């Protein structure tokens, strides 16, 4: 069964460093998302992406964040200069349509020291 994959599973970084979180969505999906979940808190929408551009972003997704689909399979989230409060689980999701079921990856746990 096709699934969304994410790497790495855990990333530890120093404050101020850049990190790139990687996702491989389900191959025939066209709509992609990134979410963040701070420990013990709700899943928060960060950004949606379609047709090689950002479709919508939340207030959390500031200038420190960027997304890219560098090739036909990968979808990445970059945080330019990490802050302590960026520590969270980051989930990638893909879907075949805006209102359809979303398929989530297993997440990347980001720890900023």
């Amino acid at each position, binding site marked *: 069964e096709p699934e969304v994959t994410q790497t790495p599973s855990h990333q530890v970084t120093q404050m101020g460093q850049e990190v790139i979180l990687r996702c491989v969505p389900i191959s025939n999906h066209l709509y992609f998302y990134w979410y963040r979940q701070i420990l013990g808190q709700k899943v928060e929408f960060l950004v949606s992406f379609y047709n090689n551009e950002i479709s919508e972003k939340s207030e959390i997704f500031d200038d420190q964040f960027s997304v890219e689909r560098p090739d036909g399979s990968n979808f990445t989230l970059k945080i330019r200069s990490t802050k302590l409060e960026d520590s969270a689980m980051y989930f990638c999701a893909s879907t075949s349509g*805006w209102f359809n079921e979303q398929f989530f990856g297993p*997440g990347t746990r980001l720890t900023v020291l």
Partner: protein
Amino acid sequence: TQLLEQSPQFLSIQEGENLTVYCNSSSVFSSLQWYRQEPGEGPVLLVTVVTGGEVKKLKRLTFQFGDARKDSSLHITAAQPGDTGLYLCARAGFNKFYFGSGTKLNVKP
């Protein structure tokens, strides 16, 4: 912001008990989805409800969509330890997706 309030926030029950969790909003939904998230994993879709008053059953789980399409409930009959997890309601918007605050369920053997 499309707020989805879930209650209760936490629920700890014994195996075999029944429970209901709620999802409420001041906005009307065109559809609503329920997800379950286990620790260290991403959310997994349980059901989508579309029609006001709709009831869907998934084994011991019963999902109901309010007549006015502003609220939904999830009822679990004879809960089992395997039901432990975070239950999230969510609504899909055009190019955005809103999750509720979640109900953390713990079913003790």
